Each structure stands twice: as C-alpha cells, then as structure tokens.
C-alpha cells in the first residue's frame, strides 16, 4: 500500500452504526483537553484527534487500515475555539460514520473550525468571563468566599451546557444533512474543498502575524515593513506559506525539515535584527 498517503476513500464504505450517547458524551469530556499538546505548527491537531478517538475507534474498529487513514488526516492543522469544538466534532463524526470521502471530511473540518474562533471569543472572553468575574471579584475583594465559587459556578454551567448541546445537536444535524447530500456526493466534495481552500487562504492572512522589525528602516525613517505593506499587505505570511508549499510539493521536504528551517530562520533573524 505505497499509495496510502493519497488514498481518499475508506476501504470499508459501509456506514458504521450510529454513535451512542455514551460515546458522544465521552468525547465531550475529552474535548476539555483539546489544547493539551498545543504547538505552533498544527496547533490543536493532536488534541483534536485525542478528543474524537473514541468515536473513530467505534466507527472504524481497532487495528483497521481505515482507522490509520482516519487518524492520519485528523492530525492535520486544526485550530478552533476550545469551548465550541464539540460543534466541529459532531459534524465530522457524522461524516466519518457515513464513510464520506476523506477530501470532503477534511474540507468540512477546515471550513467549520475557522469561523468559530470569533464567535467563541465574543461569547466567552468578552461576555461571560467579564460578567462572572466581575460579580465574583467584587465579592472576593470584600473577603467573601462565595466570590470564587459564584464565578466557577456561572462559568462552568454555561461552558458544559454549550459543550454538550453542540455535540449532540451537530451530530444529528450532520447525520441528517448527509442523507440529502449523498445523492450528489461528488459535487458536494468539489464545493466543500473549494470552501476549504478559500478558508485556508483566509487563515494565511488572518493567522499570519510575521512582520519585519520596526528597526529595519531607511534613512528617512520609512520601515521596510511599511514598504512591503504598500506592495501587498501580509506578503510575508503569503510568501512563507507558498514557499513551504513549494518545498514540500516539489522538493519533498517533510514538515519537520520545514520546522527546523523556520527555527533557524527565526533565531538568526532575531540575532541580526531582521525580526
């Protein structure tokens, strides 16, 4: 099976039995540790896989080639809002259960993870925490032990309600949607990958914060970065992504080689003052 890397359909295409409530709930609990192995390259990827593993095991079975395939593509770049991740989990698991084309699953995953970040920040960090912590802090400052208890209670009731609701809701939503879409599966895959690529393009700009040092300037004070921005804003993130794409696609570089190169580039760049 030398072609395993590019295999895009599961070997066993018979839909698996629907996941039971117990498995779904187990994954809600696991979703708490989504960021356990957070890293700069793929962010929450390993925590994401850790979270959905109970579902994948139930769907593909232990020691199956399909499980390996599924694990491999679920280890690709992943980043979403930690409190809303069960929404993505539900949809992706419904697709996995129906043994949907891997390209479709990947595209839907990428398309779903991106937009949730802003929504989650708005709900949790800008609304819930200020309210809960505001109430709690004023009590705590007066020496009232109920301050921290109130805070924990308010925050976690909302958090768990959201996590459990989203998991079950999006899983049944995904299951229903698939029935409609299987009639035009090929067209759906094409449309979904189009959306996925569009989102990756957006992420390149939105997540790309690399800039040159403000100290790199011409004699009149114009920074090199502002000149680059004048040509094309976010040129460096775009250039790096395309460069790495080229190295991997044409030169056969592995991700770890790319990471090593970036580490050297970052350290040397900081030493000589480029960054």
């Amino acid at each position, binding site marked *: 099976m030398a072609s395993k890397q590019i295999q895009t359909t599961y070997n066993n295409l018979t839909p698996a039995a629907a996941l039971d409530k117990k498995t779904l709930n187990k994954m809600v609990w696991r979703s708490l540790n989504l960021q356990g192995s*957070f890293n700069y390259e793929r962010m929450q990827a390993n925590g994401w896989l850790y979270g959905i593993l109970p579902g994948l095991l139930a769907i593909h079975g232990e020691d199956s080639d399909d499980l390996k395939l599924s694990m491999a593509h679920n280890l690709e770049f992943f980043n979403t809002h930690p409190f809303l991740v069960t929404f993505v989990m539900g949809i992706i698991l419904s697709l996995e259960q129906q043994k949907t084309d891997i390209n479709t699953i990947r595209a839907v995953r990428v398309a779903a993870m991106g937009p949730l970040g802003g929504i989650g920040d708005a709900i949790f960090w800008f609304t819930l925490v200020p309210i809960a912590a505001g109430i709690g802090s004023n009590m705590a400052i007066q020496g009232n032990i109920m301050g921290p208890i109130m805070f924990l209670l308010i925050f976690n009731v909302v958090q768990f309600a959201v996590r459990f609701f989203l998991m079950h809701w999006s899983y049944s939503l995904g299951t229903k949607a698939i029935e409609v879409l299987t009639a035009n599966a090929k067209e759906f895959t094409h449309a979904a990958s189009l959306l996925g690529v*569009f989102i990756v393009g957006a*992420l390149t700009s939105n997540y790309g914060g690399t800039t040159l040092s403000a100290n790199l300037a011409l004699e009149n004070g114009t920074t090199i970065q502002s000149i680059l921005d004048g040509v094309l804003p976010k040129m460096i993130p775009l250039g790096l992504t395309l460069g790495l794409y080229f190295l991997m696609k044409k030169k056969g570089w592995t991700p770890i080689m790319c990471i090593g190169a970036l580490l050297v580039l970052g350290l040397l760049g900081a030493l000589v003052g480029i960054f």
Partner: protein
Amino acid sequence: MSFNAIQIILVFAWVFIIAIDQFDFLESLYQPIVTGAVIGAILGDLKTGLVVGGTYQLMTIGNMPVGGAQPPNAVIGGVMAVVFAIGSKLETGAAVGLAVPFALIGQYMVTLLFTVMSPMMSVADKMAEKGDHKGIVRLNWLAMAALGLLFAVVCTLGMIGGEAMGKTLESLSKAQPWIMSGLSVAGGMMRFVGFATLLRIMLSNDQWGIYFAGFSLATIIGYVADLTSIVLTNAGFTNTILDKGETIINHGIEATERVGSIANVSGSALLLIAFIGIALALNDFQTNVALKKAGSNENGGDDDGI
C-alpha cells in the same frame, strides 16, 4: 518569608493543576479569583488570598487568551502575587509588581513548550500511521504534564527564593533577548507549515484563484478591523499592572505582539469570510448538479457517475 514543606508541596500541586487548566480542564480554575483563594487558604490567610485574587482578576479582565496570543502569563503572576502579599505582608499593588518577572517567565515557558511540541507532531504522524491510538492519548497527557511541571517548579523556586528569585529571573530574561524573540518569531511562522501541508493535500490546480481570493478578503477585512480596534490583547494588562515593571515587560510584549497580532484582527472576520465562501461553494455545488442533470438527461444513463 518562610513557608513550611506542606505548604510548598500543596502550592506545587495546585500550580501543576492550574498551569494545565489555563488551556485545558475547566479553563477557569486558573483565573486569579479562584487561585487567589486557594493559595490563600494553603498559606493560612484566606482573606488576603480573596482580596488579592479579586483585585488581580479585575486587572486581567482585558487580558484574555484571545485568538491564541500569549500575554504575560497571568496564571503564574496571580500565584506569585498572592504568595508575596501573604508571605511578605505587602500591599496588593506592590505584590503584583513583584510578580511581574514571574508572569514574563511564564509566557516564555509557554512559548518554549509550544515550539518544542511542533517537531513532536512528526512523532504523532508515525503513531497515526501505525494506528497507535494509545500513543496519541499518551502524547496529549505528557505535554500537559510537562506544562504543569514547568510552572510548578518556577513557583516553588519563587516561594523558596522570594524576591531575590524574581530579580534573578528578571536578569535572566534580559540576558539574551534575541533567543526568546527568535523563538517567538519562529513559533509564529510554524503555522505556515500547517497551512502548506493542508494546501499540498487539498489544492487542485484549478483552485489557486480561490486560495488567493480567500487571502485577499481576509487581508482587507483584517486591515479594516485593525483601523478600528487596537491591541485588545495586551492593552489591559500593560496599562494596569505594568506601571510597576514596564522596563522588564517591554521586550516580552514586543515579542508577544509579533506572534499575537492575529488576535486583534480575528473577531468576526473569519465568520464574514466563511459566509462569502459558503456562497461560492453553494454556487459551485448548484452549477455542477445542474450540469450533471443536464448531462444525464442527454445520455439517458443515471449511474455512470461521470
């Protein structure tokens, strides 16, 4: 400032838990309001713990981990503020000031761990290839334990070494600023490896235009958002707490901003972009389905799948 062995062990254990909690578990135990009370109770002065925790909490409300940026670490800062307030009988403000070097070291440790964990993803790839699901679980827990240990050790050093330890850490963090700054920059670039990998798999040659369209739209929306909202992430913390330690924090913030400028433009940008992407995808879907139907009418076949 002297603490007994049991107190030090209990603080070690609590810091171990909340260091992980800042990204996992309940993601709320680490908040200063909770941690202040717990540390206060351990050190035998619940009331001071509550007051310092509550005060620190109000200061850090604008200092959330929005969009994945790493501000000076409020977790370790909160713990040390309470330790100093109780141990050295300091005013809240002074205790928070002394805690700043620890907050900065905390941020450095997070950066370091996230960098080190990047090459570990290749190990995870090998596990996936073999279907080693237990390995994936182990890796996730190991990384969490590493984070907990790093933080717990620094806090323990702080409890034993006191203010002197803060000064040592401060000079340590100033010694070779380019290393931390370089790691931050490299860390900020590593996500492009993740994007490039996705593109390598997803992108067919007829979709390059779509990729650039997504990039352009995000850049435009990001630019507009940048004009209106300025540095949400760091402003709150910097303004309120750092009067006490501005010189120490500056180069840390500088590094943070470069990695973390993603935070300020995120917001609803990606949601808006997704709406437009969905419109494009729907259009593509409907066009292709219509084409297929037209085609199949002509051929009369219904299951050739072409």
